[in-house]
């Protein structure tokens, strides 16, 4: 191991993940596992328990979770797996390992205040339906919040 486990993760492993008794309720109820058999949250928890956190963190697998939180609900030990995944993703993102699609959403948000693109066609459809026109939002506030919370992509964009 090259790096010590980050404190937040160490706490989660100690307080939550160590209670996992490998029953597999998570993988049995997981939608991603139905579509992608290599995706196995039980095995991820096993690796975390055995100290292989860097392998889990750098694996593409953590980005396949749909965040449906079914494992969070069905786990008999209250491990809260989907929230562990979120923690792992946050740590991976800090290390520059987030997939492009996720970062695109962040860029879009900084530029427009929304994660969906506003088109002229939609404004016209809205008018036809009698819906109010969409007004631009104050993106300066969003950018400031991103900076104030140390959001990596925002800080990097600042550096140019």
């Amino acid at each position, binding site marked *: 191991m090259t790096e010590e486990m980050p404190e937040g993760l160490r706490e989660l492993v100690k307080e939550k993940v160590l209670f996992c008794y490998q029953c597999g309720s998570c993988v049995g109820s997981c939608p991603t596992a139905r579509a992608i058999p290599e995706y196995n949250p039980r095995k991820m928890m096993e690796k975390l328990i055995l100290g292989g956190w860097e392998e889990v963190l750098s694996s593409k697998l953590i980005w*396949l979770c749909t965040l449906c939180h079914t494992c969070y609900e069905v786990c008999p030990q209250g491990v809260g797996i989907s929230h562990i995944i979120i923690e792992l993703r946050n740590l991976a993102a800090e290390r520059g390992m987030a*997939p492009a699609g996720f970062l695109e959403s962040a860029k879009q*948000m900084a530029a427009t205040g929304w994660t969906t693109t506003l088109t002229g066609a939609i404004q016209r459809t809205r008018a036809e339906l009698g819906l109010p026109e969409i007004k631009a939002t104050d993106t300066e506030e969003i950018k400031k919040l991103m900076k104030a919370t140390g959001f990596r992509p925002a800080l990097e964009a600042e550096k140019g």
Partner: protein
Amino acid sequence: MSYAFFPGCMIPLRLPYMENAARKALGALEVELLEMPNASCCGDPIAFQSLSKETWTAVAARNLCIAEEMGRDLLTLCSGCYETLKTANVKLKGDQRLREHVNKALAEVGREFKGTIEVRNLLEVLQEVGADKIKTRIVKPLKDLGVAAHYGCHLVRPSDVLSFDDPMKPTTLDQFIELTGAESVSYLKKMLCCGAGLRMVDAEKSLKLVEMKLGYVEAAGADCMAVLCPYCMVQYDLTQRTIKREGGANPQMPVLYYAEMLCLAMGMSPKELGLRLHRTSLEPVLKKLGLNA
């Protein structure tokens, strides 16, 4: 009744017919919807929560501040926004340290989270209106229509924070479907996720989940699906032709937003609702209801 109205991004910018139906249904029930000046994306439960929980919470909190300034509870139409905004609201109300931390960031944009409002979803607002009142407005019951209720994940999970209905066996949407005169059809894997959260990373496998779900709905003999969340709507309504083109099954399952069902039952026309904007044909449903598209 009056709410700070938060339609989200996906509904107003991509699926405006959902916003249209929600506004029309709530308008008919005398629920006033107040625009939220300068609201942004909720904070996004998939991309942003994954990249930085801290930024996610701060962006959500900013939106909550706008509703607080209006002195109104917030109604969001999107289940993703519901998870984001309710999680932020519950956590910031309950965790003093987190609140101080987030308020430091909010101070930079001249705002402060005070914890004075609640976050509601569409069904909660309809519950508050009350089934009795809604019943008096049903003039065209959706008789003989078999509907598969798809709750979507972020309406009910994580349940310790959202505390709306049962996280694995919810019943609220089924009850509201029956209220329109339609029948809520039981089917397998009712709580299976639509797969939207997988789309950014593996679109093909995300569609596999759509195909599976539509298969279960079809097998149960439902006439259509009812959804609440715009991400589920995109997954189910917009992808059926793609699934066929890519050599999968040939699903032809109409997908309705619950508010659209309610509007139809209240006697509104498919035309004024903009139902033509759906990508999977609703014709079988409209025909069964004796309506012209």
